[in-house]
């Protein structure tokens, strides 16, 4: 696994100097490497991991299962494109298993999401069924602990 990418995944705010020290590569090399990843679209962007629960209470996410009929020519891709086009949709995954797509959908209220699924998603041509699962609480997201139970250091011996 690429160590630079791994480090950036844990914290995209490491400075070039820090990355250079940790990886034992010159700063110029690190800069060039990051540029290249960005240019090639391997690094798509940098985002904050936000604990929304502490920011606003009118924020809801749901995982939506979709069963669809793949299109003759374009298979699942066209269906994915249609789902991606909605602002409400955060993530679109093609799944192996009992359903075809998993979407993460975001809204201000449960009602928002219910309406979105009923009016926009399930009416797409080729959608056979939907299943909506509301996310009640996020404990861990993208490797980060979102609770305030950051484990205490229980080590006690110094020497």
């Amino acid at each position: 696994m690429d160590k630079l990418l791994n480090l950036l995944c844990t914290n995209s705010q490491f400075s070039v100097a820090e990355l250079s020290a940790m990886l034992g590569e010159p700063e110029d090399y690190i800069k060039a490497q990051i540029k290249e990843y960005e240019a090639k679209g391997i690094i798509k962007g940098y985002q904050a991991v936000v604990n929304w629960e502490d920011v606003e209470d009118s924020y809801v996410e749901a995982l939506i299962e979709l069963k669809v009929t793949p299109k003759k020519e374009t298979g699942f891709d066209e269906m994915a494109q249609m789902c991606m086009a909605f602002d409400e949709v955060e993530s679109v995954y093609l799944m192996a298993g009992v359903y075809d797509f998993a979407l993460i959908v975001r809204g201000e209220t449960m009602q928002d999401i219910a309406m979105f699924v009923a009016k926009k998603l399930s009416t797409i041509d080729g959608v056979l069924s939907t299943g909506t699962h509301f996310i009640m609480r996020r404990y861990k997201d993208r490797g980060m602990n979102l609770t305030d139970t950051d484990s205490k250091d229980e080590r006690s011996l110094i020497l």
Partner: protein
Amino acid sequence: MIDYNRYLNSSIRSLSPSGIRKFFDIANEMENVISLSIGEPDFQTPWHIRDEGIRSLEKGKTWYSPNRGFADLLKEITNYYERRFSLTYNPSEQTLVTVGGSEAIDLAFRTLVEEGDEVIIPQPAFVCYNPLCVMAGGVPVNINTKNEDKFRLKAADLEAAITPKTKMLVLPFPNNPTGAIMERRDLEEIAEVVKRHDLMVLSDEIYCELTYGGRNHVSIASIDGMYERTVVINGFSKSYAMTGWRLGYALGPAPIISQMTKLHQYGIMSAPTTAQYAAIEALKNGDRDVKRMRDEYDMRRRLVVDSFNDMGLTCFEPLGAFYVFPCIQSTGLSSEEFCTRLIMEKHVAVVPGTAFGDCGEGFVRVSYSYSLKHLQVALARIREFLGELNHGSQAEGAC
């Protein structure tokens, strides 16, 4: 009122308590301390290893083990030394499972040292060797390793410390607290002296899996003519993040191991059973975990060394364990002053070099057994501290 001093063994009474207790008392009482002082892995024992321990309990394996340890574990330990260091030991005669490397060190001293024997112990070093040597009746002869030698032991210094009473050399590499290692060439020079003076070696290899920069640990037992003169101490604490399981071992010539086993049999009976089941799993299937943790430590090590050098606290590149040992002489403070002020003013705890021998004066031990995030915060505070110190007066000093 009983005068307990009348009953207490005079050797144990005269063992000096750690001279830096005052400092640790401050550290313990203070809140919001960011510590860089801990000497054990921050990783938890890998799950599959814990699981084997749990499974052994579920199966009701709650009895003593054989005195030497379970045969399967003895076999895995010897396989491991063969595989990693090309050293062949007989599991049933040359191997003993102990309660941590610590017990093995104690047994080795008590088995080999007689009243008045001199034992050469390089410093800075882990704190247990001198007291355990004294309790075995030995006389510790400390020699100082130096910054300019990257804290490696030099043959000339060893030679100079040898007297007709010298019986044994303690070889504590990879080293706690300096992070120094000994490479094959260094060991060959030491071995030459050891053989010429007919000494034994206690080689504490507990950090053998934590070496960096492509250097694999070399055991002095693998140097020509040293196998028969070396008692190897090792354990599971550092390599597999298993400190709390309390499991270690000794490998060496059968006549020595058999006497150590006798002592172990009377004093301890057998090492913890649950820990032994977990350790078998560690040796069988733990290589990937070892590599993962080593890679992670290595990244931290580079960050910390780079930061200290950048701050002006020069620091040789440590190639072992999980400590750096920066020189703080340029601040004009003593090690203890430096640590006390750093904790009082910035709430960051590091350990004065003097905790590991007088020659540690002018240095501090910084552990990087912490997450990158934790290290970043602590390093930023140390940088602030130095900035404020420089604003005051600046003393000249060089390492």
